[in-house]
Each structure stands twice: as C-alpha cells, then as structure tokens.
C-alpha cells in the first residue's frame, strides 16, 4: 500500500471513529431512562414546568436535531454546565487538566526509565535475575488492581514508615501554590525558583506517580526486552562487534537505539490507557485532576461533565493512536500492509 493511500485510509477511519465517539457521548445523556428535565427540577415540579424545562433544554426536538445542536455547541467550546460546581464544564476541565497531565507524565517517566533499563538488563542476560524480576513485575502489573497498589503504598510509606505526606492533594496545606505558568506544580516551582513548593509537590507526587507508572511498566519492559533481543542478534550488531566497539558502545549506542523504535510507539499508546488508570489513582490520592472530577460527577449524577469527558478523552485517545501509527509508518518501512 502506498503512503498516500495509507494516509487516506487512516484519516477516513479517524473521521469515522470520532463520529462514533460523539454519538456514544451524545447518547449517554439522551437515551437515559429518566427525564433529565424532571430530574433537574425534582419530583414536586408541575408537569407544566417540566415541559417548559424540556423545551428550554431542547429535549422536545427529535434525536438527530438534538445531536446537531449538541455538536454545534461542542465546536463552539460550550460543553454545558456542571450543576455540582456551577461552572461551565470547559472551565472546570481546563482548571483540572494540568494536574492529570503532571501525574501521567511523571508516571510515564518512571515507567520508561525503569522499564527500559529493566528490559535491557533482562535481554542481556536471559533467564537471569533481572529477567525473572521483569516477568514478575509484568504479571503483577496486569493482575493487581491499581487502586489497591496505591493503598498498599500508602500503608507502607505513610501510615507505617511516616516518610511521605498523607495522600490529600498535590501540595502541603501550608505551602503556597507556585505561580501558574504551565499548571504543573513541579515545573512551575522550578521555573519560579520556588524550592519549598518544589520539595512539597515532589513529595506529594511520588506515590501516585509510582502507582500509575506500574500500569505501563509491564508492556514497556516486555517490548524493550523483545526488541533488544532481536537487535542484539542482528547483523548490524554483529558487524559493530567485529569492528571492535566496546560492549557498552554496542549495547547502548547501536542495539538500544534501534530497539527503541517500537518502544516509543508503545509509550504513545500507553498514554491513552494512563487516563483510565488516572481516574482510580486520583481517587485514592485525592489528586484534583480530571479523574477525581469525573469520579465526583459520577457520584453526584452530574451528566454534563461525564459526557464531555467521554468525548474529549475518546477523541484524544484516537488522535494519539493516529499519531503513533503515522510515526510508526514513517519510521519503519516494513509496515506497508494494511
């Protein structure tokens, strides 16, 4: 398949996927068994009032009409209002998004550093201690519930060893929030040379980041190990050895660099899954990102934020997948089929 045809096909698929996601998000609220107008007004509202509210909310129109209105609003940046926080959902979302990004990036960083090192160590000595450790971590990563791991870490480091602060937020209550530049506390406090805030935010970040990092750790380790084994047995590594390069040079400069290509795409894909895991981790650590926001909306039956989050996260996930596929296609000439 030529590059242009592949691109066209992939973009057509993206349009279809985004359309599907928007339909799912739309139906989420509009096929609810209950009457949103009535549930907003309470059981004591008169039938007349409910009818008025229905008209106001546009619920008396046909479903396709309502869908067009809904999508029109979305494209204007209007995601509806949360009746729990009394703010527009878009505003709430922008406010909380940096916290989730900070958590996800920190988790990914931990997973990449640990996963790649462990994967390389496992590949260098197959069936050695690091290989067994990698297998063990892999099984743990897909078998243990992430919220439970978070609680175990709290038990160990907070309530038993007393080395880390209680899991309540992103910063100690007596530390001032660093001036907002990116919204990522760690980055902001470095940029404003606020060392007290940096120390505090790092202490609060480490446990949730490690917890969330366990999810992508297993696949990254497995991928690195497999790619390294393949690279180490390849002709170019043999050639490098024959040229007399040192073992370190061969492993790090030649084999690892080639092995990292599939790992990079794997990391991209993991980003989407991290969002799902972030919901659970944010609940455990009362981390005020979009996961905790989603959780509180679910508990409070606040539908506008839930609907918007499904839409936004779904589209983001699709875009990440597309980018990763494109990168992969650009890097690896072998992928020219389907």
């Amino acid at each position, binding site marked *: 398949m030529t590059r242009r045809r592949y691109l066209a096909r992939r973009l057509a698929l993206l349009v279809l996927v985004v359309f*599907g*996601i928007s339909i799912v998000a739309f139906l989420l609220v509009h096929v609810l068994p209950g009457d949103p107008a009535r549930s907003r007004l309470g059981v004591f509202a008169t039938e007349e009032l409910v009818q008025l509210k229905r008209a106001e909310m546009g619920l008396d129109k046909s479903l396709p009409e309502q869908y067009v209105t809904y999508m029109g609003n979305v494209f204007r940046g209007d995601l509806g209002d949360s009746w729990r926080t009394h703010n527009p959902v878009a505003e709430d979302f922008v406010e909380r998004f940096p916290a989730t990004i900070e958590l996800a990036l920190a988790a990914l960083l931990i997973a990449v550093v640990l996963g790649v090192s462990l994967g390389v160590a496992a590949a260098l000595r197959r069936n050695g201690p690091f290989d067994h450790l990698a297998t063990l971590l892999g099984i743990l990563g897909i078998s243990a519930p992430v919220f439970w791991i978070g609680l175990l870490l709290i038990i160990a480091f907070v309530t038993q060893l007393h080395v880390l602060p209680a899991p309540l937020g992103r910063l100690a209550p007596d530390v001032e929030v660093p001036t907002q530049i990116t919204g990522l506390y760690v980055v902001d406090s470095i940029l404003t040379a606020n060392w007290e805030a940096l120390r505090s935010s790092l202490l609060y970040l480490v446990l949730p980041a490690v917890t969330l990092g366990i999810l992508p750790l297993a696949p990254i380790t497995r991928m690195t190990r497999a790619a390294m084994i393949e690279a180490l047995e390849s002709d170019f590594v043999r050639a490098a050895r024959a040229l007399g390069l040192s073992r370190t040079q061969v492993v790090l400069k030649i084999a690892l660099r080639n092995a990292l290509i599939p790992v990079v795409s794997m990391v991209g894909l993991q980003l989407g899954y991290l969002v799902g895991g972030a*919901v659970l981790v944010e609940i455990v650590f009362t981390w005020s990102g979009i996961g905790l926001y989603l959780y509180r909306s679910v508990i409070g039956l606040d539908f506008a934020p839930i609907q918007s989050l499904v839409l936004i996260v779904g589209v983001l996930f699709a875009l990440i997948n597309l980018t990763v596929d494109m990168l992969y296609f650009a890097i690896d000439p072998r992928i020219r089929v389907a």
Partner: protein
Amino acid sequence: MATAALVPRPLRSALDVPSRRVASVWYQVSQNTLTVFGLILIAVVVVFAIFAPLIAPANPVSGDLLNTTQPPSSQHLMGTDQFGRDIFSRVVHGARVDLAVAGIVVSVAFVLSVVLGALAGFAGRVVDELVMRAMDVVFSFPPLILAIGIAVTIQQGGMLSLVVALTVIAIPPMVRITRAEILHRKESLYVEAARAIGSSPLRVLAVHLVPNSLPPLVVQATLTFGYVILETAGLSFIGVGVKPPAPEWGIMVSEGSPYVRTGEWWISLFPGLMIFVTVLGFNLVGNGLLDVLNPRRRRQ
C-alpha cells in the same frame, strides 16, 4: 505429539479428535509449574464461591456494631470493617459476586464475538467493513472511560449495566482474533475439500471453520476473565458497578480506603489481595495455554 508425527497425514486428522486434543493440551499444561499454580489459585476461589455459606464463619452483610474496625485476630481472621462485619466472610462471599459477573460477561462476549468475527471473516466486503470499523470505534476508547460512560447511562439496570459495559469492552479483541482465524483458514485445503463435496457455506462455517478457530479464542477468554474481574472491581470502586452492601471486592477496598489513612489497613488489604490472587490465577493459566497452543511462543 511425537506419535502423531509418525502417522500418515490422512489418518492424523482422523486421530485429531477433540478429546485427544484436550488431553494433549492438559498434559502440556500440567508440565508448567506456573500454570498449575494458576489453576490452584482459581480452584481455591471457585471453592470459596461454591461453598461460601459453609466456609464463611459469619454473615457477610450484617455486622456486630460493638466490634467495628477490629484488627485481625483468631476470632476474625481478617478483622472487621467499619460496620463490624467479618471481613473474611465478606471476602469468601465476594468470590460469588466477582466470578458471577466475569462468568456472564465472558460467556456473552465469547458467543457474540464468535458470531461477529465469523460473519466478518466469512462474509467479507461490506459486512466485514461494518463489523470491523464498529470494533475500531469501541477499541478507540480507553476501556475504563467507556465502561464508566455505559454504566452511568444505564445505571438503573444495576448489575445489568455493569455486565453490558464490560461485555462491550471485552468483545473487540475476541472479534479480531476470530476474524483473523477464519480468514486464515478459509483458504485451507480441508475447507476446499469440504466445499468440493458439496457442503453448504453455512456447514463449512459451523462444522469446519468455527471449531478450528476456537483455541486462540479460549486463551483470550481466559485472559479476559481476569481482566473483567479487575474492571468489575475498578468500576465498583468508582461507584458505578456492584452496589453496597453486596460483598464485592472492589467495593470493600473502596469502603476501607478512608480507614487506610488512619492506620486500619486490613479493611482494604484483604479484599484487594483476593482480586490480585484471582486475576493472577487467570493470567497464569491464560499464558500457559498460550504457550501450549501457540508453539512459536514456547520458551526454549
């Protein structure tokens, strides 16, 4: 396996009847320590589920309000929770809830995936495109977010909404596997032979293609079983799955989490451990089956 190689080709397929195949798989599985360990874990949980009322020393939903948040002791093996309920009894009864949800989800997803995957792979063209693009759409959601969306939408259904949400996210990988198997086998000699002697397409599909495509699907179903238990617990932890006071593991971890911060660790620890042990069991068995059924993956 060694004897099969000595048998001439026409006879070999006659010998390869399902019961023999199952026996051979069973033998190979039993050679792998980790897989056997996984089987034992699953067996323990299944025994818990079946004999829950006999094993559990106390009622799982009504507690003794004079004995709340007691640490593990000889009287309460895993301690008591904030309502004075015996955690061990709740953990044992929890096996029923979680295994039942996962059992239903995996069975329904299995049947639907075989039908959809076979349809897509066998009919091809428009049907194939329709089915597979629909799967792409489902696949392009982060699973937990999609499940939350579905579970919230049909929340009046209670347990039903949970089952529907988890079934939807379990289907796409199984459909892909089935379709790939069917596509791959459609061109094989035995299908051609069956066609040549006048078998109808439906018969070719039902008698030859589908049964031969099942092994990789069984592996996927085993792995899915563990995954569904994990997601059931996750959704219940968030509050959109099974509802309290049902003794579901995820709810129990969630109910204990505020107490973890004040040092009462046992309320969340043991139910979480049960989730881990059960999912671990299914993952070990799934990986073991994968090694047996797919020789390329076997380790030297």
